[in-house]
């Protein structure tokens, strides 16, 4: 379980996150939603330890975050990974990055590591591209490579920051189906997303964030009013009876 306690975060005197108290239970498919500038990516970066905590704390599996991060890593898929398309790496090299932290200095990957990486790539539907140069991959293929890298960490938590960015609509659907499979296999998934339509089919736990938390609950308990409060005037809701 991941707990955020009294979290506050400011940048240049502007409050980005305020009074965040949140518990994400194990095994959920959680989605963090909110308008642009709501603090979603900041919350993820604080969780990953990519930015320093200012006030409040994060507890993971009952252990303070800094201590937890010394012994564990998250399976993380960033919003847009900056990389040089001509960088001399194959898709398999990038996937292997997920387990590079488990090897000491001076130790190279062996056949066993490489086989495991390719197996995970097959699970993510990208196995046949293992030897391809990263510059030759499409946006959707690259997202699957990054998902395979996150899976290879063997972390029970998968954190995704707008994974649908740069993928076409059919690609997004199959990507979320894949995430659902990993969720059913026991992974706790926390994703930032704007795609409410897709999320409504897959996520089980919704976190509505707009600087403050507007809700965090089982997805079916979230109603239009909460969504309206989170997004303000930036969305127009059309409610339908099913």
């Amino acid at each position, binding site marked *: 379980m991941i707990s955020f306690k009294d979290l506050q975060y400011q940048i240049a005197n502007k409050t980005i996150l305020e009074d965040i108290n949140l518990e994400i239970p194990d095994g959920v498919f959680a989605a963090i939603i909110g308008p642009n500038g709501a603090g979603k990516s900041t919350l993820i970066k604080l969780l990953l330890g990519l930015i320093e905590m200012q006030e409040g704390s994060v507890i993971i599996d009952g252990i303070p975050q800094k201590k937890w991060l010394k012994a564990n890593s998250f399976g993380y898929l960033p919003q847009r990974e900056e990389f040089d398309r001509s960088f001399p790496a194959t898709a398999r090299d990038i996937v292997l990055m997920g387990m*590079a*932290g488990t090897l000491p200095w001076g*130790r190279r990957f062996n056949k066993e590591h490489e086989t495991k990486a390719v197996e995970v790539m097959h699970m993510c539907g990208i196995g046949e591209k293992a030897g391809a140069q990263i510059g030759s991959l499409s946006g959707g293929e690259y997202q699957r490579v990054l998902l395979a890298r996150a899976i290879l960490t063997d972390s029970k938590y998968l954190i995704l920051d707008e994974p649908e960015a740069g993928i076409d609509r059919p690609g997004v659907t199959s990507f979320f189906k894949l995430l659902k499979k990993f969720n059913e296999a026991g992974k706790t998934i926390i994703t930032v997303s704007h795609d409410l339509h897709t999320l409504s089919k897959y996520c089980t736990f919704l976190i509505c964030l707009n600087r403050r938390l507007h809700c965090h609950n089982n997805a079916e308990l979230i109603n239009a009013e909460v969504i309206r409060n989170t997004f303000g005037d930036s969305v127009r809701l059309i409610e339908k009876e099913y």
Partner: protein
Amino acid sequence: MPLFLISALVGAVLSGISLAIFAPYVTLRRISYMGEALSHIAFAGIALAMISGLNLTFGAWMFVSIVALGISWLSQKYKIQEANTITIFLSLSMALGIILISLKQDYTFDLASYLFGNVLLISASELWALGLLNVLNIAYVLFFYKELFYLSYNPEMSKVFRIRTQAVDKIFYLLLAANIVFNLKSAGIILVTAQLILPAVTAFNLTCKLYKAIFISVIVAIISALAGFAVSFALNLPTGATIVVCQALLYTLSFIFKKGRR
């Protein structure tokens, strides 16, 4: 062949190799401006070493290492644009160097040989130092291959996946500083950066594997050093500049080869 010429030839080759080993990483990490800046900052280091009576090369290396680590720390800590930080340090160091050298009027300082390099002036101890530096470079690149690969790919993601790159990064800057300072005598402040980039960009035109790129980069440096030395000796041209021209020619050939292959 006179002994001083043999020393100079060995010096040119060792100098080329040491810069060529680091060149692929400097290119992939897009920090060629750092090489440019550190070579200029070394000028202030030499001046400081001169004033304080230290060995010029060792003193300059100490100074450049501190500044290189400082730039890296400042830009990570305060998210300052590295290019801006470096330009400030570069200009300040050159100004400081000029002032310090002007204060030490009783000292004869061959500014031209530091600016443009003169491999003919290389001493036996400097050759040994270059040899040792090459051993350190090779050991570093072999031992930390995995960490350097991912550090060059994406430092932030390396941190997320707990790849131990922090110390590797610090050693990188210390060795980069050493490679620049120890090669000033042979390559010169102005031209050392060219030798820190050209062999790598040539190699990446020919291969898309990092270990092959390092190997090709070294081969390019050796061929350029030998050819440049021979041409400069035959036509009485400055050696450092001729070596850089040879590297540029090889780069052009590799570029044509790459275009022809598509």
